[in-house]
């Protein structure tokens, strides 16, 4: 019994040791008079995959969009509370949201490559952020990004053909490569596989799993199985609040809250 207790203490210490790259403190988000997020406090561990799940309109995408201040672009949207990225409040006055969005990349539900060549899709970000001093450096960034996104073998012979000519799954990985090119720390993904077939989904999931070595990933998904398959942590949102957040395994085998149970088992109206 004593040994078990020591193990538990060690486990607790290791749990504490996981570095939290994002700390969210009591965040409220309003769209005009409508409150979309209520007192959300959530920590996101570094170099892990965190899934955000919940029924439509629960606030999970709103939360995701707070992390790179995408909500700033929405009229009448007001964010209160603190979101700390490495200890710095990203809503602080000194924060440049363009630099923030380079550090916190985003991949959307529908693959949205620019109507440009595969090369230029990826080179676009590094060019505007001045990340490459010359053509060779830019080539290097493009190729490494494609490599990291697991796309290089499929496109190396046609880097200058249009990105929109790729299959849906390839386009989505191109968008991931594009996000990687500006050297982010965090990648936000809003249902990145919902428009993909199972094979393309599996490839993107495999890629996400590899990326967690070097990046922190937060993914919104409507697929419970996807959340269960790929993430280490899961947060369940409902009516603008976080009902339950913690280890994915625990949440899908014995959730603590009846609402979580109801939602993930398909009993929720």
């Amino acid at each position, binding site marked *: 019994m004593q040994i078990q207790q020591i193990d538990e203490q060690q486990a607790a210490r290791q749990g504490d040791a996981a570095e939290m790259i994002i700390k969210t403190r009591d965040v409220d988000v309003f769209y005009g008079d409508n409150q979309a997020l209520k007192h959300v406090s959530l920590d996101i561990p570094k170099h892990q995959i965190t899934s955000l799940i919940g029924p439509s309109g629960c606030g999970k995408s709103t939360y995701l969009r707070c992390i790179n201040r995408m909500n700033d672009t929405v009229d009448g949207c007001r964010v209160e509370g603190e979101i700390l990225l490495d200890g710095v409040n990203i809503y602080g006055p000194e924060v440049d949201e363009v630099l923030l969005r380079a550090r916190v990349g985003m991949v959307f539900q529908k693959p949205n490559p620019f109507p440009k060549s595969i090369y230029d899709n990826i080179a676009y970000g590094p060019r505007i952020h001045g990340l490459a001093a010359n053509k060779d450096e830019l080539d290097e960034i493009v190729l490494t990004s494609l490599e990291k996104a697991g796309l290089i073998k499929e496109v190396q012979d046609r880097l200058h053909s249009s990105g929109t000519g790729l299959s849906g799954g390839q386009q989505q990985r191109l968008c991931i490569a594009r996000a990687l090119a500006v050297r982010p720390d965090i990648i936000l993904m809003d249902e990145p596989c919902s428009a993909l077939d199972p094979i393309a989904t599996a490839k993107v999931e495999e890629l996400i799993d590899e990326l967690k070595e070097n990046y922190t990933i937060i993914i919104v998904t409507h697929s419970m199985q996807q959340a269960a398959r790929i993430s280490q942590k899961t947060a369940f949102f409902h009516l603008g609040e976080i009902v339950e957040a913690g280890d994915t395994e625990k949440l899908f085998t014995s959730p603590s809250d009846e609402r*979580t149970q109801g939602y993930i088992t398909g*009993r929720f109206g």
Partner: protein
Amino acid sequence: MSSGHIVKSYDEELESVRNTIVEMGGLAESQLEAAVRSLTERNSELALKTIEADKAVDELEHSVDNMAIRMLALRSPVADDLRLVISALKIASVLERVADYAANIAKRVIALNQGPTIAATSTIPRMGAMVRRMIDDVLTAYSNGDAELAYDVWVRDQEVDQLYNSMFRELLTFMMEDPRSITSCTHLIFMAKNIERMGDHMTNIAEIIIYQVNGEMPREPRPKGDKTSVTMIENDGSESN
């Protein structure tokens, strides 16, 4: 969660798994009852029927397996649904073993009935009744999702073990007094051992129910009372452990 799934057929499938487990448990219990009665009544015909009836339990186990595999493949159950399906797989396999033990008792009854009546059989029905109550309670706990009742069964097995210990010692002395009784006493020891194992299996099911209801197994070690594996009787009849 008391409310049903949005997909109603999912609820029907889960219900069907639950009902099959309860049916298996009911059969296993009546198998035990019949096996013990065939002993006390020296009724070889009843014993034969009991052996035959084991097939029905085997079939129900297959049916639980098939339903569970189908649900795992098609429904991807999670949370309490997942625990129910996994628990059903495990409980069905345990109940199948329990029915096997009952059939084994019945086989030994047929062998015993070929010899003269023996005196030392009274403990078996007492053990049988005790284990039948455990089966009954464990099934009630299963049907009602009652972790407390399951816990009660989990600790109760010690009583069966104690009865088994005393019967074991009693039969050893019988055999020493009259070596002609060795065959029948050995059969009786195996019968008692079968019932004692059934009791153990009920504690396994109780653990599974506690897991199914609470999401975790009981943490403390289960109290155990079977000391027969370390019991020795010396030639002068004295006992050492």
